Structures are given as C-alpha cells and as structure tokens.
C-alpha cells in the first residue's frame, strides 16, 4: 500500500544510510592506508635486519637465524621464507614460494597459505640477498577482529536506522491514517448533505490542524451561503407567488369576463405593473446574489462618501418636502473612500427611502456622514419614526422580512438586507440603534489608511479631482 508517511520514512532511511556510508567509507580508507603504511615500514625494517644478518654471517648464518626464529615461533603472525635463486625453499615457515608471487623485490599484497592459520590476506616484502630470495610478511590476523568490529558496528547502525525509521514511519502513518479517516468520515457526511459537521481540531498548531481549521472556516461560509440560498428560495417561492397569483387571477378574470375595452386596458396595465413587481423582486435578488458572491469588488473606485450622500439627500429632498419632513444633512469635509459608487448610492437611497416611508408627517430625518475616532467612515440615517423593537432588529436584516410597521406600505422586504450586503462587501457593517423615538441606521465602512488622507493640495487645482487609482486598489483589496 502506498502511504506518504511510509515513503517519507523510507526516504529518510535511505538518506541516513547514505550519510552513514559517506561517513564510514573515508574512515575505512584512511584506516587501511595508515595500517598498510605502518606495516610495510615494519616489514622493511624486518627485511633490513635480516639483510644485516646476511651481510654479517652469510647465507648459512641467515638460514640458521631464520630456522631458530621459526622454531621458537617468536611471532606466529610472521611469514619468513628464504629460497635460492630458483625459488626452492631453504628455510622459513612457508612450505613453498607462493605461486602467484613473482620474484621481484618490492611490497605485495597477496593471499598466502600460512598452514595453521589457513589462507590469510597478507602484506609481503620480497628482497634479493646475493644468491637468495628473502620473503618476509605478516598476515592480517591481528587486525581481523578490529575490522570485524568495524563492520559489525556499521551493520548495527544500519539495522538500527532501518528498524527505527520503519517503526516511526509506520507509527506516523497509523496516526495520520487515523486523523485522515476522521476527516474522511466528516467530509463524506457533508457530501451526503449534513453541513453541520466540522472537522475535529486539536489545540496544537500542526499543519493538519491548521488545514482542518481553514476547512472548517470554509464550511462555515458554505453553510451560511447554503442557508441563505435556502432561505431565499423559500422567500422567493412565497413572495413571488403573491404578485403572480394576483396576475393570474387578473388575466383569468379578463379572459372570463371579457369586459369593455376601456376596463380591459386598465386591467392589462395593472397586469403589466404586476409583472414589473415580479421583475423588480428578481432584480433585487440577482443583485443580492451578485453582491454575496463578492463579485462586485472589481467595481471599486475612489469616491467621496460625503458627495455621494449629498446627491442622495438632494435626490430625496423634494419627496421629503412633499411629506413635510425636514431632511437634514451633515457632512464634514470630503470623506474619500474606495467602493462601488452604484451600490453605495443604492444603499443610501434605500436607507433614506425607508426612513421617509416610516417617518411621521412633519417628522425629522437626518443624514450625516462623518469620520469616527477610529478612522472608519460612518453614514447615519436617523428618523424620528416608530423605530424597530429590539426583538425585530435582527429580523429586519433578513431577506423578505417585513415588520408589522411595514404592512400596507409598498416594498418587498429586501431593502435592509441589500444595504447590509453592500456594507459587508465593503468590509463594513450595518448597525441599528434606537433614538427614542426613531431609528438610526448606520453604515460603518473601514476607510483604508491611504485613501483616508484628504485630497488637500489637489483641492485648489482647477481640474476636477482626479481619481486616485492606487488608493482605490489598496482599499479594495
């Protein structure tokens, strides 16, 4: 079975072994070279001593010296052989001249059958002394245990590395499989439609946990959206049914009654108005969906909130006048921000329109734009109408919700949720608060540091205030 944890462990084992070999090989080499050098020096010294004896006592003297040494078995790791020029052994502990060894003076590394110790890898030195060939050497018996220990050590290290690595790999894999299994279970529960499930998270901040938290965040958002969609489709079903039902009965009645042309046309006009209502609801929903999807960020440009509000106030002023409502406007300075001018204008228009609807005759409506102490921009629309009960405050932001006060007034109950969606798109919030009497609806928009700077110097120039593309994109993120 393929497993990333296991492959990782195997990879690490291979890496560890490579490191071990890379460490041991030069050591081994250096050791071998040093020992060999030392031994060949010793051999040369040996040969030199025997040569001295030869020079002093002649061939017979050397022969008897060698015989004596072999006889005494002074050092059983030594190889000694004296031959005549036809390599016929005269003295020493080797029965024959090693067949693979040529009779040329120098150092050689050969395998020699040393009798009681068997065949040994040995370093030998060949010298010619007058009418004789001398062969001295030492077998490796002395160093064999050391070498063996070296190899045991290396093998042991490799074994420990492999087993430990494999164990760690298996344990990691098991732990990983356990966590992934729980994630898989959660995800398959979600696939089957239960969006309430969340991935298990621990306090630790490891990668998997961070991922799980991110995925949970995503699931929260998805659940919210799905919930919203579900709500909206329920509401659509309900809210579109009403005008459609009216339309249907109107048309059916026309078809059945066949009234006089004049009345027929009046009914047809009313039917067109019904259709327009349906279209308006659709438009509002589409726009909400568009805003929810966050697609409108591309439409962000630098703008002046104060100017936007001034236009909206001026737009509604005649309507307020008609209802004898005092419409006041307060704005400090230009208040630059980055946003979608069309949507922000629509939000403002919705708020003022709402307030005008609910403000009493001779009421007061106040629109104010200001920068708060924390730098955020605040657009407040305050009326002295009936206000909204605390219990209803959250509900009025829901789509299609229409409070008791709004019964009998035109509208589809999307106004405030649209404003809220627009505020959210701009990274802001919508706040409702009581004014006793009345209601204050406040859009709070964070204003980016740079776009918060007043245009200052540009103000005196004749040219219309140029857009600030940099601040726009910075604040639009």
């Amino acid at each position, binding site marked *: 079975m393929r497993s990333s944890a296991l492959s990782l462990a195997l990879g690490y084992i291979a890496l560890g072994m490579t490191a071990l070999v890379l460490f041991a090989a030069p050591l081994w080499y250096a050791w071998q070279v040093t020992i060999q050098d030392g031994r060949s020096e010793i051999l040369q010294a040996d040969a030199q001593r025997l040569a001295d004896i030869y020079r002093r006592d002649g061939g017979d003297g050397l022969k008897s010296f060698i015989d004596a040494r072999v006889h005494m078995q002074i050092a059983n790791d030594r190889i000694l052989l004296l031959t005549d020029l036809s390599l016929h052994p005269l003295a020493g502990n080797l029965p024959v001249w090693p067949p693979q060894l040529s009779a040329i003076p120098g150092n050689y590394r050969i395998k020699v059958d040393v009798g009681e110790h068997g065949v040994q890898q040995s370093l030998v030195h060949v010298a010619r002394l007058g009418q004789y060939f001398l062969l001295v050497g030492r077998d490796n018996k002395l160093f064999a245990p050391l070498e063996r220990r070296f190899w045991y050590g290396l093998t042991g290290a490799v074994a420990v590395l492999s087993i430990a690595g494999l164990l760690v790999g298996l344990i990691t894999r098991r732990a990983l499989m356990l966590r992934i299994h729980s994630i898989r279970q959660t995800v398959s529960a979600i696939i089957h439609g239960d969006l309430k499930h969340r991935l298990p998270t621990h306090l630790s901040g490891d990668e998997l946990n961070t991922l799980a938290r991110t995925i949970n965040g995503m699931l929260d958002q998805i659940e919210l959206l799905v919930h919203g969609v579900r709500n909206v489709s329920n509401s659509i079903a309900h809210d579109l049914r009403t005008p459609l039902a009216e339309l249907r009965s109107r048309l059916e009645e026309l078809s059945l009654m066949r009234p006089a042309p004049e009345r027929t046309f009046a009914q047809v006009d009313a039917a067109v108005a019904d259709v327009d209502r349906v279209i308006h609801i659709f438009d509002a929903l589409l726009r909400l969906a568009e805003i929810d999807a966050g697609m409108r960020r591309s*439409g962000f440009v630098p703008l002046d909130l104060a100017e936007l509000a001034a236009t909206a106030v001026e*737009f509604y002023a005649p309507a307020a006048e008609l209802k004898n409502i005092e419409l006041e406007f307060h704005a400090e300075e230009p208040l630059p921000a980055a946003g*979608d001018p069309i949507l922000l204008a*629509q939000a403002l228009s919705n708020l003022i329109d709402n307030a005008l609807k609910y403000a009493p005759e001779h009421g007061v409506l106040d629109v104010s734009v200001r920068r708060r102490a924390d730098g955020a921009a605040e657009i407040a629309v305050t009326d002295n109408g009936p206000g909204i009960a605390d219990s209803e405050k959250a509900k009025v932001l829901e789509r299609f919700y229409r409070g008791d006060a709004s019964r009998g007034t035109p509208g589809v109950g999307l106004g405030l949720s649209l404003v809220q969606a627009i505020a959210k798109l701009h990274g802001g919030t919508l706040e409702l608060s009581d004014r006793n009497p009345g209601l204050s609806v406040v859009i709070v928009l964070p204003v980016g540091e740079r776009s918060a700077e007043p245009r200052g110097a540009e103000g005196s120039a004749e040219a219309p205030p140029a857009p600030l593309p940099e601040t726009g994109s910075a604040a639009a993120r």
Partner: protein
Amino acid sequence: MKILLVEDNERVRQFVIKGLQEAGHITDHAANGRDGMFLAASEPYDVIIMDRMLPGGIDGLAIIEVLRKAGTLTPILILSALAEVDDRIRGLRSGGDDYLTKPFAFGELLARVDALHRRSQGVNREAPLIVGNLQLDPLTRKVTRGDRQISLQPREFKLLEYLMRHADQVVTRTMLLENVWDYHFDPQTNVVDVHISKLRQKIDAEFERPLLRTVRSAGYMVTARD
C-alpha cells in the same frame, strides 16, 4: 429612421419590429449573428439594436467589436438578459452606446433609440437650447421663458437640460435617473416624478402652454408641439 434589429427570440423580434414600424421607422432584422453582421456591414442604418447573446457562433459583443474596428459609427443599443453592472460596463466597452436589460418596456426601448439617434446627429453642446419660448443656455447657465428669467437649482438645471436636448422625444424615468443622477438602479419610488413636478412648477406654472408633459406609462417630454 432606418433601424436594424438583431435578435434571435422571435417573439421579442416581432414585438419590437411592430412597435418600431408603428413609430414610423423602417426596420431590417436578423435572427442570428452572421446575418446581423452581414446586414450591419452592408447597409447604412441610423441605429442598430443588438441582442447580446446570439446563436450562430458570433455573439452580439463580437459583432459590435468587428463593426467598430471596421469604422462603423452607427449608434448601437445592446439588449441583454444580463443585468449585472459589470456586464453593462463590458457591453459599453465593446463599442455599444447604450445598454438595455431584458425584459424591457417598449417605451423605454423607443426612447433610448431616439436618444441615441439624436446624439449621433452631432449637436453643438454649447449652443442654447430652445423649445417654444423656453431657452436654456448651457454656457451662462441661464434659463428664460418668454422675457422672464427662471432660477433653477443645479440639479434642476441638469434635468431640464437633458429634457431639452431630447426635446420632442419621450425620456423615461430610467434615462433620467441614469443621466441626471448617475443612478443605475431603480429607487422604486416616484421621486423622479416629484422632481419633474417641481421643475414643472418653475417653468410651466404661470404659462398658459405647458412645455413639460407627462407621457402616460412611458416618461416625459419637453415639446412645444400640440
């Protein structure tokens, strides 16, 4: 006026053609992009109405881009079922002159076609506008009716200017919202009507002959005709 309609939906096509003909226009029509492009490139038209989504491999925006590259200056009105603001911007950027979202009221379409045609006639933006005895000077920003000077608020001035630039044509509420207030959404109230009646009080109230008229279920018109 000679108008080309490129629209694949037969019902919409017949409805629009019939309406345009009743309004006294000569019409050609095509049901797909290929025929539409052929007609647009070979015949001179005053206005082209182009559906955005067309069968036949070439969509409306592509045709508009080709026509513009070929040097056609004919004003083009884009019809589209896509209502999002980005779509609108993309449509206008491709070379369209105005954008109307389906479903639409025929009065809206007709008013926009007229306005497009008027705009393409190349008017002098600085010359005084005169309707009957009402005169508006865009340079001095003075408005007079007969020998009386009328003082208007800046927005009222803009409103009247737009209406007078389209004198004898129906101007819809949506057109006013877009062009006078730059509002590309429907405020769902009769606020435009209130503005108009305020303006009407200033320019018509004390005169026998009203110049600013309401056109039933369509919009408004400034005219000196009967």
